[in-house]
């Protein structure tokens, strides 16, 4: 595991961030699946130590089969850990009082398809013990929020598109105005506008002081909205920190120059910069801000003309691919 994390030194959470109090904490959380009537086992999660703090958007990312969904199911009490501890609001995940304070949108949600959207939300509202007046007030608000058209609300769910079901899924997850929202691939099935609206809805939850735990393959989304990210691979935490910590300050720059003689180009090529010719331009690659200054000076010294400078930041996707590959799992 890389610098920002200390996964092998439990039980302290790897990253502390100033701000809200810890509301979800795992200590050496391990899950081993055992095939029925067999001695064959599979370690889905190994010694996971993370903490989620109030008011943040926490991203859980990893390749397929890395243990993201297992982690989510453990946090929701749908499966039991083989070893280790897990608390939400200081209590076990199967505590009914905990469930009163959380919301969950599963990956590819499925609801009773003989009901329409309003009936589905009414059903979940009743499970929370909301009375008729409360439900009548809350349900239209939620359906408005997820932009489900009035005409669609009375159609049974089985006639809905995937995106519409996903919208109902978000609405049911918010029915109790939860303090913590668990979202598993929330933008699945949504068109670009729907995905954008979903991201806005998630950010709005954080603005209201709510906490969001997000599992997603869409790393650009995770980078855009998450405060902290845990990268899991083959059941192990391989990187954990704030997005800034993970992506780091490293930037690469491209200096585009023209009006350069063959002699000037030859001089530039003698330098340590990566140099290439693109059309009428000569492009110098600098891997840091200091080197950028040197590259600009070099171009001017050889009589060239700087026409453009482009900066490239590392993305979470770059970090993810590099991390998973260097971990020998990619």
């Amino acid at each position, binding site marked *: 595991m890389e610098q920002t994390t200390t996964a092998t030194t439990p039980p302290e959470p790897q990253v502390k961030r100033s701000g809200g109090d810890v509301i979800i904490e795992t200590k050496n959380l391990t899950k081993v699946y055992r095939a029925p009537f067999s001695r064959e086992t599979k370690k889905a999660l190994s010694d996971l130590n993370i903490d989620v703090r109030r008011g943040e958007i926490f991203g859980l990312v990893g390749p397929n089969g890395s243990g993201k969904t297992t982690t989510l199911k453990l946090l929701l*009490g*749908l499966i039991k850990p083989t070893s280790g501890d897990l608390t939400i609001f200081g209590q076990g995940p199967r505590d009914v009082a905990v*469930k009163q304070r959380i919301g969950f949108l*599963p990956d590819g949600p499925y609801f009773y398809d003989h*009901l329409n959207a309003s009936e589905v939300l009414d059903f979940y509202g009743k499970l929370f013990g909301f009375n008729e007046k409360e439900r009548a007030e809350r349900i239209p608000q939620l359906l408005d*929020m997820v932009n489900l058209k009035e005409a669609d609300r009375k159609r049974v769910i089985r006639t809905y598109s995937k995106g519409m079901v996903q919208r109902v899924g978000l609405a049911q997850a918010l029915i109790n105005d939860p303090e913590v929202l668990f979202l598993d691939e929330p933008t699945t099935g949504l068109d670009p506008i729907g995905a954008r609206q979903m991201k806005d809805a998630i*950010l709005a939850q954080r603005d209201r002081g709510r906490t969001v735990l997000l599992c997603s393959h869409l790393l650009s989304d995770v980078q855009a909205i998450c405060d902290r990210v845990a990268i899991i691979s083959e059941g192990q935490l391989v990187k954990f920190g704030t997005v800034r910590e993970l992506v780091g300050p490293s930037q690469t720059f491209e200096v585009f120059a023209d009006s350069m003689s063959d002699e000037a180009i030859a001089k530039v090529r003698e330098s340590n910069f990566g140099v290439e010719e693109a059309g009428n331009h000569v492009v110098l690659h600098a891997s840091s801000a200091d080197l950028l200054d040197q590259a600009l000076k070099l171009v001017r010294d050889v009589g060239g003309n700087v026409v453009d400078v482009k900066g490239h930041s590392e993305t979470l996707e770059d970090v993810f691919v590099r991390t998973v590959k260097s971990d020998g799992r990619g």
Partner: protein
Amino acid sequence: MSSTTEGTALGNRGHLEVPTNWRIGQAVLCAIVVLVGIFYFTIGWHSPAAESRVADNLSLFDGVGLLVLIGMIWLTTPAAATLAWTTFQESVRRKWMFALLIFALVLIVISTFFTWMQPGSQEKFIRDFGLGFIVIITMLMAVFLGVALVPPEIERRTILTILSKPVGRAQFLIGKFLGLCLTLLVNLAVLSVMFLITYAIFRFRLDHGIREALVSAPGHPGLMFELGGLTSALALQFGFLIIMASLALTLSLFLSNIAAIVVCFIVYFGGQTSGYWEYLSRGGGQSTLDKGLSPGVRDGIRAIYFLLPRFDRFDVRERLINHMPIAFNYMFKSFSSGLVYAAVLLIISYLLFSDREF
């Protein structure tokens, strides 16, 4: 999705505790059950002569049955009731269920056109056909709906969103089970009403008048007596269905659908012949075969007898043929035993389900 997700006055807590009004309602129902128990224990229902073999007063076993009923009432929280109602809604909106119900209703009505097959005892034909048909149809409903009560929730993953809400696993199971019981009760009631109306109309026509049909005479029981007996038989059928539903639910938690259905039918036939198993377990037969049973085989048979539900207690068709009354205490005892059996199965279901991973 709008990004303005302003909270409402609702807050985020919901209502964790069962509302007081709900608890009062449950307490009233439990009190009624207790009063019935006290009445039965102290006074009892005095059976007609035909029922003289059945104890009139509350036995320990009946008391356990009443306690099971009280437990079921108390565990039915609003969340369980919500699940029960949704299960009922889902069942009645199934197309095959509706088709089966219509088919059964039509067949009950048109059975009056086939009475020529039993000349001289046409009313017996309708009675046997109607009752037998309702028994089979509702039993099939109990088995097929029972095995499909929980596994589809797991396959379709609807269970993930339900169990992530403040719903305990026991509440989930009880809710689903009560929803099935409600479905069976409604279907049984609809079929029964249609059958009783059909039978009454047929008797009016057969006896050439309402007054004639109502008159009792030797070999000609009055219509009201017969309808009373048939109603009791149909009410007992509900007790049988409760056992079948709980059996199907329990089996579906650890067997495949097909295997669960097959075992249900085996238990059904075994339970129908439980009197015979009892007879064999006593080794009291006069035939050479019975006397030849070794003690080990007899113990095995006794174990089967104790494991099987006493379905013969819920089948009173023979009594109806012989124009015997079905006393209330007979029904009471049958229901008590059924409730105890169903409770044991539901406890097994809970043990199988409580640590299940999804």
